[in-house]
Every structure is written in structure tokens, then in C-alpha cells.
């Protein structure tokens, strides 16, 4: 069970430390000629995203837009790099010492923005605060952790193989224990202090959240002097913002909005692989859908490549499973179901539906176009969908409700497992005791338990393979696609996101 993750400083880190000085000068020059709005001599990177944080206490933030801001203020123990490798951040090495212990070695010489040193006490404080029910955190990933011991050990009540991945984002933000004790939770949220590459400056709600470069960051000073976040819930505002040079980067554009930017010569659209998986959950207890032949027929009927090119403007990759390609456990040998309407019709006739059938289908209005396209493709093989398209809030509420029938016989969903371990999505959508699951299979539950609690990676990979073969045969989902991330940016910024899509601006030039 030696599972030491690799962990000398990466090539990229070493490079950055050496080159930071010269890049800084270059960034200063290019920033000067960028925009009239920022002529005061500092280079500010202006980012628009759909929403802003609900608050600045990282343990109380569970939304990605909020974390996009916080990840610049706080460092995590580990991190995903742009190649999607899990790399050292505040932890330099980590290993499982037995089934119940993960040991992390910490980076030395790191200080918080107020000068407080970062050490094992910070880790103990941060993780134990996160898992303490009194904190009211909604971040569930670390629920297997029992406590932290200061020989740099994280002790688990249940074995958990994914701890290093889970401390790469929401689960791993490090807070200063002493400062927190001084100012309390409210005081801390009003002016958060982390060890991250940027420090908090000010926040005027619905207007501007300002961060400034932290000169003493252990990984070198970032190229931009400031980062400004603005929430622009209306996509048209964000587009006008980038077209009129009021912002430098717009995140989370949907493919249709991105189309409108074509032809603007100063604005470039970049598309990066993303990990949000889209699939349709089929109710395997429904009187018609309990027949696996019908579920396979639906998969044969939907032409996903056509869906991606016609509806998503090619902004996605076909999926054979509900696990993203980049996640641990993805099995490249499992192929997407063949798109074959004749086979679909044959299977449906076999199952006694030669005259067609009608199914109810629920989706959020964010996915309206995809839903309508699906309905059209299924109509071709004799399956009529009764569409119920809901406002996103209502849809989210029904997803979380105790009544599975509120979402009809099938529903379209998107899921982002930021730990990038296949187990997270499988848990939520397959384990029989989960609200979103429409599957009652003891066999599948057993496999998920094994995935969740086995430390040995080879044994886990074997179970992942069995699990995906099971998915392929049983077809409890309509497998669709893995969505890309779309950004619009101008010439002032050069930046590559990592696959989980967080707006960590340390590497922006």
C-alpha cells in the first residue's frame, strides 16, 4: 500500500519561481496600454462571472462562483494543475500510512497575509472547523475525517482513499487559527485572511470585489497587481462588458452566448475541456423503464454527436458513462452506446412497445434546447416525451425533494464532481439511498461501498471497471456528453484554466 503521490516541486513551479521577476515587468508594460479605465499605474485584471460569493468564509461557500474568488485568497493543501495532475500546494508530500490515516507533510516558511505563520496548527484548525457541525458548512466531502493530529496526520473514522483530492479545493482551504480566534467567524468573513496569491481588499456587493497581489506569496508574486471580480448575472451584460472593454475575462459563457462574440476582433473565445457531465436519469422502477431493453433502446435512439454539433455548437465531448474522462476511475474501454434508431425500434418492439410509448421528462430551463432536441430524436423511434421544463430554482428543489415522482419518469441533469474521482458522481446517482438515484441495486451499492472505502488504487480501478461495465449493460442513464468550459477574453490576459474550471488567477499573465 505505498501510495505516495509524486511530489517534488513540478517543473512548472520551478520555472515560475525563476521567471517571476521578468514576467512581472512584461505584464506591467502590456497592462499599461490595455484600457483607459485603468490608467492609474496598477495592472488590474477584470473578471465577470454569473454570480458573486454569498460570503467570504470559505467553509460556508459551496458554490463554484464563490470559490472562484476565494481560491485566490486561500491556498489548499493540494491542487489540480492545468494538466489535471494532483500536485503539491501547501502540502508537499502525502501518503496513507494505514487504512485510517493520511499523513501530509507541509510546506515550510509560508505566511498568511497578516504575517501569521502557516503550520500544522492551521491545518488542524481548518479541517476540524470544516467538519464541526456547529460551523454549518455544507461541504460534505470530508465527512469521513474524524480528527487531525499534529504530526501532520489526518485521521479518518472510515477509510477514505480520496482525501488528497478532497483537500485540493473546497475541503482544503487553510485558515489562520490565531487570527480567527481573535476576530471570530463574522469578523473573519468581513475581511478574510489566507496564504493565497492575492489578498482581500474590498467588496461592494453587486459591484466589485477587489483583490491585490500578495507580494510575499511562497510561489512568487502574481503578474497582475489586482484582480477584480464583478457578478454579471445577465449574459448580455457580460458580453457587452467584454465588447466595450469593461472586463478582460468572462467565465461560464453558454455556447449560444459565445456565438454572439464571433467577429469581434479584440475578443477571443477559448474553449477548454470541462468536467460537467450531462446525462438523463431513467427511473428504473417505472413500469416501462424497468425493462432494460427500453433503457437501451433510448440510448440507441439518441444521436449524441449530432446533439453536440447542432445544439451545443461543438462545445462538448460525447460520454460513455457518468464519469468524466479526466477523473480517476474512468475506463476508456467502455464505449458509448451505438447510435442506431433501427436497433432502438427493434428493442422497443421486443419489449412490447411496437406502437410507441409516452414518457414524462423533466429538465431545468437552462437545458431547454437539449431537452427539445432529445424529444425530437426519441419521437423518431416512437417515444413521445411529455416535457416539463422548470425554472432552475424549482428544478433544484425537486432534485432535492424526498418525492422521486416529482421529476417524472426521466430527468436531465448535470453533475460536476470536483474531486475528480469517479466515486462522487456514482454515489449521488446510483447508491440506492440517495435522493437523486432511481436505482435499487444491491450489487451496485456494494461496488460503490468498495470504491468509497478501499485505499489500494489498483483494486479501486478494477471495481471502477466492473461498475462501468454494469452501467453499460444496465443503461440506467441516457449517457450524453461532457460539457466544455467557454471563456471570452481580450488581449490583456493569457491564462489557462484547469479542468475543474476554477478562476485561480495566480498563473494569469
Amino acid at each position, binding site marked *: 500500500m505505498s501510495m505516495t503521490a509524486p511530489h517534488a516541486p513540478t517543473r512548472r513551479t520551478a520555472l515560475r519561481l525563476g521567471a517571476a521577476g521578468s514576467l512581472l515587468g512584461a505584464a506591467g508594460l502590456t497592462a499599461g496600454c490595455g484600457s483607459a479605465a485603468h490608467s492609474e499605474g496598477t495592472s488590474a485584471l477584470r473578471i465577470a462571472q454569473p454570480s458573486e460569493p454569498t460570503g467570504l468564509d470559505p467553509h460556508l461557500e459551496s458554490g463554484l462562483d464563490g470559490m472562484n474568488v476565494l481560491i485566490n485568497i486561500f491556498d489548499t493543501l493540494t491542487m489540480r494543475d492545468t494538466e489535471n495532475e494532483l500536485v503539491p500546494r501547501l502540502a508537499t508530500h502525502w501518503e496513507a500510512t494505514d487504512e485510517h490515516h493520511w499523513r501530509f507533510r507541509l510546506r515550510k516558511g509560508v505566511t498568511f497575509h497578516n504575517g501569521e505563520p502557516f503550520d500544522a496548527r492551521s491545518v488542524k484548525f481548518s479541517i476540524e472547523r470544516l467538519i464541526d457541525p456547529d460551523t454549518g458548512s455544507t461541504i460534505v466531502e470530508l465527512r469521513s475525517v474524524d480528527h487531525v493530529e499534529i504530526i501532520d496526520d489526518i485521521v479518518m473514522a472510515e477509510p477514505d482513499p480520496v482525501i488528497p483530492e478532497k483537500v485540493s479545493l473546497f475541503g482544503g482551504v487553510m485558515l489562520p487559527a490565531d487570527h480567527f480566534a481573535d476576530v471570530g467567524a463574522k469578523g473573519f468573513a468581513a475581511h478574510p485572511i489566507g496564504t493565497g496569491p492575492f489578498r482581500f481588499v474590498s467588496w461592494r456587493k*453587486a459591484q466589485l470585489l477587489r483583490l491585490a497581489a500578495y507580494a510575499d506569496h511562497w510561489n512568487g508574486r502574481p503578474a497582475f497587481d489586482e484582480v477584480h471580480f464583478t457578478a454579471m448575472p445577465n449574459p448580455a451584460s457580460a458580453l457587452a462588458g467584454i465588447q466595450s472593454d*469593461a472586463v478582460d475575462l468572462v467565465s461560464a459563457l453558454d455556447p449560444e452566448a459565445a456565438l454572439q462574440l464571433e467577429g469581434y476582433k479584440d475578443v477571443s473565445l477559448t474553449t477548454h475541456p470541462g468536467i460537467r457531465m450531462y446525462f438523463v436519469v431513467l427511473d428504473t422502477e417505472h413500469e416501462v423503464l424497468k425493462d432494460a431493453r427500453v433503457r437501451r433502446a433510448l440510448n440507441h435512439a439518441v444521436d449524441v454527436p449530432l446533439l453536440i454539433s447542432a445544439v451545443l455548437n461543438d462545445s462538448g465531448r460525447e460520454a460513455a458513462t457518468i464519469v468524466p474522462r479526466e477523473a480517476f476511475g474512468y475506463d476508456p474501454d467502455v464505449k458509448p452506446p451505438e447510435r442506431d434508431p433501427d436497433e432502438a425500434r427493434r428493442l422497443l418492439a421486443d419489449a412490447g412497445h411496437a406502437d410507441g410509448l409516452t414518457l414524462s421528462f423533466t429538465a431545468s430551463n437552462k437545458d431547454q434546447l437539449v431537452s427539445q432536441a432529445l424529444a425530437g430524436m426519441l419521437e423518431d423511434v416512437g417515444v413521445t416525451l411529455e416535457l416539463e421544463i422548470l425554472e432552475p430554482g424549482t428544478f433544484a428543489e425537486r432534485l432535492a425533494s424526498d418525492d422521486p415522482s416529482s421529476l417524472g419518469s426521466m430527468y436531465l441533469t448535470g453533475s460536476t464532481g470536483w474531486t475528480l474521482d469517479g466515486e462522487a458522481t456514482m454515489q449521488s446517482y446510483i447508491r440506492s439511498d440517495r435522493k437523486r438515484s432511481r436505482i435499487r441495486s444491491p450489487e451496485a451499492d456494494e461496488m460503490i461501498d468498495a470504491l468509497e472505502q478501499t485505499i489500494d488504487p489498483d483494486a479501486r480501478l478494477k471495481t471502477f471497471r466492473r461498475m462501468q461495465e454494469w452501467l453499460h449493460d444496465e443503461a440506467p442513464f441516457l449517457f450524453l456528453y461532457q460539457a466544455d468550459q467557454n471563456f471570452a477574453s481580450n488581449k490583456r490576459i493569457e491564462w489557462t484554466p484547469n479542468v475543474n474550471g476554477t478562476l485561480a488567477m495566480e498563473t494569469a499573465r
Partner: protein
Amino acid sequence: MSRGRTRLLRAAVTRLLSSLLVLWAAVTVVFVLSRASGDPVALLLPDDASADQVAQMKQTLGLDRPLPLQYLDFLGGLVHLDLGDSLVYKEPVTSLIIERIPATALLAATALLITVVVSFLAGSIGAMRRGTALDRVVMSGVLVGQSTPAFWVGILLVLLFGVTLRALPAAGYGTPAHLILPATTLAIFSVAVVSRLLRSSLIEVMGQDHVRTARAKGASEARVLMGHSLRNASMPVITVLGLELGSLLGGAILTEQIFNWPGIGRLTIDAISARDFPLVQGTVVLFAVTFIVVNLLVDLSYAIIDPRVRSHA
């Protein structure tokens, strides 16, 4: 005289009581409707939250208590001007609202100013040059303004001045330049309504005896307008301006969305989509109070402008 004063006092008290009744009705409707719209906990928790987490969060937010109790608590809080804490931001609703009032007030006040100035000009020109080509041009403009949806005007202004000409900021807040496009967008409908009304009202007043007398005495057209007609013609205009202030606040919700303006309108929309009950209730209380106060002010201004109203109170 003292009988008149008692009567005025009684009218004022009745007025105040009925205002409170309206306020109570408004907040009650919102209380009921917002709870009928669904459960915010689903939106606040991550996808795979456990039943324990849901129960704990409901308890923390006080949403597990019987509705009548929640309602009484809410009314009790209102009396003390305490609107509770926002579910999303975990901060007092009053302070979140107070933070956003200046932006909306600035936008609505600027739009109102534009409305008054432009409609005074357009209405007077129309009345004094009635039937001429100039009048027809102004009135056609007014008709276009009245029949064009504000959000569409807003988007056109953004495209023209923000994106194509880059003369004005397309969205945001902070400098006077940021104010121009949203305030214009917001004012367009009101300008149309008020200019038309002022024009017809002026035409009517200018036909009356005392104005004819003034003209006969040799007063200039400008003096007839300023000294004799405007004051009388402005009575219905003030009522409509009061109503328009209401629609400006309503219009601010759309305009603030288009221009990313950090005011009450955007706060309301965000609160509704997050099912943030206390915050939705708070913004509705604010809207209701504003309407009530504006109506009172309109009534009062009658009494000041037209002495006849005072004696009939």
C-alpha cells in the same frame, strides 16, 4: 378654522391607518406567496446533502417551525424594523437593503429629473405650437417612446453607445457616465406619458377665462405659460408623476438587470431566484412603503399647489 383643522387631522389619521392596512396586506401576500413557491434549503445545500443536513439547516433557519409562528415572528420583527437575516448572505436584511438603496435612488431620481425637464420642454412646445409640424414631430417621438419596451431601448442603447461607439460604459456603477444609459432607458416611458399629459392639460388650461384675460392684457406667450397656465396644468401631472415614480421603481428591476446596476431591483431578482424569503419580504416592504409615501406626498402637494383642495379636505 379649528373645525377645519380637526377635519384635516381626522383625514390624516384615516389616511395613515389605511396605509398601514395596505402595507400589512402587501407583506402578508408576499409571505404566503414566497413560501408557496418552494423550499430554499434545496438551493442552499449541495447536491448530495444528507437528510440530517437538510433537517439541521431548516432548524438553523427557523424553517421547521409552524407557518403561523413564522408569520407572527415576521410581523413582530417588522414592528421593530427588524426584517430578519438573509438566508443566502447570512446578514441582516435591513443592512443589505440599505447598502443598495443609494444606487436605486440615484437611478430613479435621475430618471425623474430627466422626465420632468424633457416633458416640460416637449409638453410646452407641443401646447404652444399646437398643430404645427414641430408639434407633430414631438408627439410622434412621444408615441414611439410610449410604445417601446424599456428593455429593448436599453439593449439598443448598450449596442450603440457602449459597444459600437464605446462612448459610454455599457454596464456597471460608479461614475456619472455609468448613470446616463440606464437613467435614459428608465425615463423614456415616463417622458412619453408625462409630456402627452402636460401638453393636453396645458391646451385645456390655456383656453380658460383667466388665461384669455391675461392674454388680452398683453402678457407675452412665455408669461402666459409660466405665470398662468403651468401651475394649473401641473395638478394632474403631479398625480401622474407620483404614479410614474412607482413605475420607475418597477422599471428599475429590468433596467438594473440590463445594466448590471447594483440596486434594489437586482437584489430583488437575486433574492427571488435563491428563494431568500426574508430578503424578498424586505424588498417588498420597501417597495410598499415607498408607494405609500409617494401617494401621501402627492396628496399633500395638491393641498400646497391648489388652495381649493385644502378647504375641501
